[in-house]
């Protein structure tokens, strides 16, 4: 579903991604871990071209999206993204946050979008917050709504960049629960996280990104029980 070929990215001479080749298939849950500054977010943000790669190519559903002629806005409609800082629209209600894109992009009528918002809010356990503003909600609630907002576009893949890192510990669980549910429903997911429990339980494949390359990848069981790369062993001994 997503193929990257020798993906590279540098910022003003500083090489952040040094050639990543990955093949993410439909239904897979790829979890990415690695030390701070190793390029995890940059890799994820390259996948929907929020960062423009400086080398290599990305193929999504058969289309080479790194081709400058491709309409990236259309591609992004199929790729949901959830940010560490939620990035909800503060001057819009929860319902408007969820319905804004589908309606503006003429995917749904306002009525259809409202119905979809209601259904999504029920699913994330916040059916009574439709008319609240994001500023009135807790971090955990905001992040669940951010997930609902991305889902409203009916994406084929969901990208998560440390979705629980900005949350108070007691709110991490509620967000992870939604993500697990989503995984069980078969959503293709790429998740950057420090939640090792989630990686173990939900991941179909775990990547260790270190200094801009995938230094190790494996099934969660092998990855955590018999890591090969010494840097990964070191990393795991610190976080587990």
């Amino acid at each position, binding site marked *: 579903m997503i193929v990257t070929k020798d993906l590279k990215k540098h910022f003003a001479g500083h090489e952040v991604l040094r050639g990543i080749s990955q093949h993410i298939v439909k239904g897979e849950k790829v979890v990415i871990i690695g030390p701070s500054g190793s390029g995890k977010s940059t890799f994820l943000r390259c996948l929907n071209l929020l960062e423009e790669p400086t080398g290599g190519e990305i193929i999504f559903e058969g289309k080479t999206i790194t081709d400058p002629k491709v309409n990236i806005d259309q591609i992004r409609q199929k790729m949901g993204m959830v940010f560490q800082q939620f990035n909800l629209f503060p001057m819009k209600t929860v319902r408007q946050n969820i319905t804004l894109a589908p309606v*503006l992009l003429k995917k749904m009528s306002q009525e259809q979008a409202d119905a979809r918002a209601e259904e999504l809010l029920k699913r994330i356990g916040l059916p009574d917050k439709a008319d609240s503003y994001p500023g009135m909600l807790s971090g955990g609630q905001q992040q669940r709504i951010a997930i609902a907002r991305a889902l409203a576009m009916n994406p084929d893949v969901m990208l998560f960049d440390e979705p629980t890192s900005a949350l108070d510990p007691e709110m991490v669980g509620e967000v992870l629960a939604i993500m697990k549910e989503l995984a069980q429903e078969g959503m293709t997911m790429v998740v950057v996280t420090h939640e090792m429990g989630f990686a173990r339980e939900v991941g179909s494949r775990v990547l260790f990104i270190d200094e801009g390359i995938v230094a190790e990848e494996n099934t969660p069981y092998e990855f955590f029980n018999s890591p090969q790369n010494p840097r990964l062993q070191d990393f795991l001994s610190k976080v587990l």
Partner: protein
Amino acid sequence: MAQWFKKICDAFYNAWVPEKRYLAYLSGLRMTLRIALFAVMIGIAIGIVLAVIKVSAKHSKSKVLKALAVFANLYTTVIRGTPMIVQIMIIYNLIFTSPNSNPVVIGAVCCGINSGAYVAEIIRAGIESIPVGQMEAGRSLGLSYSMTMRTIILPQAVKNILPALGNEFISLVKETSVISVIAVNDLMKMAGYVGSRTWDVIPPYVIAAAIYLLMTLALTRLMGAFERRMAKSDRH
């Protein structure tokens, strides 16, 4: 003491009443307000265009836009880096050489060209004060750059921009006084004219100062009320 006080009163009386001199201030005030109003409209028009160019050029690869952005940056740098009085002398002598050009137009164009540079910076700063995450969230949903700008960024930026624009208008009202160096009979010029009739320039200038102060105080009040109403409307 009493004599000194009487002398001052006489001087001010002289600067205000005889020959219906108050009418001179009034006509000057009218001119000042008209110039300020048109100048602010020209300034906002120029400012919006420059700000749009500056902000969008950053995210675009278009050569034309980049070239326009260079011009826009030059414009704001030069205008903000030179005294308005110098700009006025240059613009006036450059484009208003015909003896019967309309003074309101002259004043409004001169002040508007100047104000446009400041307005552009106010708008640009207002847009750039919105966290990048907002643009990224919009783009990640598949909205185009301009769609995200219009529906998400600008509505938030306007809240920062309007108060600063109000302040810009208030200072513009004061700064139009510089226009009196050319052939425009604004409030400042009329005060000088009264002074030349009474041979005592201080009272008319003090009167002019009082009128400017009243205007800016009133405008500040107005802005304050407006901001409070805005704050109330989005207290969620």
